[in-house]
């Protein structure tokens, strides 16, 4: 498998504060990588360094085989970026903005097709200043993908989306992956990371404390399961590393159906909250 993005020992300081303190990161080509972390953990700083928008204080960074600090227009043509917030272009219509951005690229996608992909066809002639928050965000995504990038950065792309819009958006990202685009996204929503990501990294206070597939992150797959059932009208629970054997025993005990039986593994959220510990104040 080829690597789209490789980071070793990335460091960034603002004055005395260490925003990034030795981050290592690998993202394979064609993969969706979700970077999680509480507010002020360094997610945006890391992403902006990878996008070539911010300089770093140390470490090696290679994005599509190039150091973003030395990137040229040809590298930028291969990388799509959706920043955390965008204003501007308020006097342009949606169609005009997408067409204009597409024309910056040597081989951009068809603007109408891109507008359709983000679900803004009806708003093609709407001034961007008249869009709702969620529509504005989808326009940002359209501007990010109109250059047909090999690698797409999404910084908190679905903040402010309603659940239906979020699911629609996930479909869009999945369709990008199936066409071979590598995606690195930051998000506050664990369900989003779980639904989309092949790999998840958790950034806490400038350090990457865990990396793995969402169902295996932080030893999630090996964590003890909780088996719960009802007995004498009361809820009983047992924490066990061998839920299957325990349930078989319960089955013998009850001679058939076990009332109210459930088996739960820790959710991604449980693992995440455990990883970020007490350091998460503002986030979820």
């Amino acid at each position: 498998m080829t690597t789209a993005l490789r980071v070793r020992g990335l460091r960034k300081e603002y004055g005395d504060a260490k925003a990034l303190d030795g981050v290592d990161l690998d993202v394979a080509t064609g993969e969706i990588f979700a970077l999680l972390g509480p507010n002020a953990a360094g997610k945006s700083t890391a992403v902006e360094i990878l996008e070539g928008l911010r300089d770093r204080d140390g470490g090696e960074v290679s994005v599509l085989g190039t150091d973003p600090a030395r990137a040229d227009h040809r590298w930028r043509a291969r990388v799509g970026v959706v920043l955390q917030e965008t204003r501007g272009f308020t006097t342009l219509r949606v169609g005009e903005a997408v067409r204009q951005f597409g024309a910056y690229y040597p081989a951009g996608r068809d603007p109408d097709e891109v507008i359709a992909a983000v679900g803004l066809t009806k708003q093609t002639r709407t001034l961007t200043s008249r869009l709702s928050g969620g529509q504005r965000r989808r326009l940002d995504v359209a501007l990010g993908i109109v250059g047909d990038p090999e690698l797409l950065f999404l910084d908190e792309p679905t903040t402010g989306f309603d659940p239906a819009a979020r699911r629609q958006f996930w479909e869009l990202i999945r369709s990008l992956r199936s066409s071979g685009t590598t995606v690195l996204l930051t998000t506050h929503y664990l369900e989003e990371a779980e639904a989309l990501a092949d790999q998840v990294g958790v950034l806490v206070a400038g350090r990457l404390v865990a990396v793995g597939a969402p169902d295996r992150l932080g030893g999630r797959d090996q964590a003890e399961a909780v088996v719960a059932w009802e007995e004498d009208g009361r809820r009983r629970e047992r924490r066990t590393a061998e839920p299957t054997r325990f349930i078989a025993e319960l089955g013998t005990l009850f001679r058939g159906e076990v009332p109210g039986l459930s088996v739960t593994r820790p959710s991604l959220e449980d693992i995440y909250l455990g990883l970020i510990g007490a350091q998460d104040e503002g986030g979820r």
Partner: protein
Amino acid sequence: MVTTDGVAEALAAPQDTGQAEAARTRRAPLSEVWRVGRVRMAAEVLQLSRNTGLLIFTFAVPVVMLLLFGSIFRGKIDGTSATYQQVYATGMIGMCVINGALQNLAYTVAAERHSKALKRLRTTPMPAASYFIGKVASVLAATVAQITVMLAVGVAVMGIRLPTSPGRWLTFTWVLVLGATACSLLGIGMSSLIRSENGSAIVWLPIMVLQFISGVFILFSQLPKSVQVIGSLFPVKWLCQGMRSVFLPESFKYAEPARSWEHGRLALVLVAWCVVGLVLCLKTFSWRGRDDG
């Protein structure tokens, strides 16, 4: 002195402020700079045409100023056959360029930097020079429109006389294009002085001074010698002089400090300012605001 090599180099590798030097970036070919520049031109002019509030104001200013000056100062200038109204029309052209290229453009670019619109553009392969091309085009479009309206009112109300020979209109064209380009690049450079959303006063004062020392409001030949020397260092003086050569009788040139329109020197100074302005912009242009990392 800046050589043409310096320009080519600067064109090729615009640096972020604070970004590591020694970057071996490939140059965006000039054909690509021009292609994307034309895309930016169309977008800038379109956005300008939709900014009606600003448009009404910018159209009104030169007209009102011309009417004011033209009604305060009347008659012929001593020893010449030129009227004050006719001279003020040329001064107002200088003012249109200053307002559009220096003032509005410096504010607009600073606002785009502040709203992170520039940061967003930075992530695309659009070359910095293409962005400048779009800005210069928007200033030229706005200035031509303003001058047209002002002259139309001047002709109708004050008896301003327009030149009839094609040669003079040719002079008008190259002086305006070079002057507006030089001033626009200077304006883009000055945008970096505006550090915060309400820090625009910093460009207002130098612009005011520049208008007085360049002969926009006061006849250049009536300024003290030392002020004339300082004014001659900047492009606006030469722009106004070029416009006088278009709109005033040929004999008026003897009232100029140099007893001549100095077209050769004028072209040289404006071209030099374009080159200096371009290098300045490419070397100092920042895509992000100070409060953004």
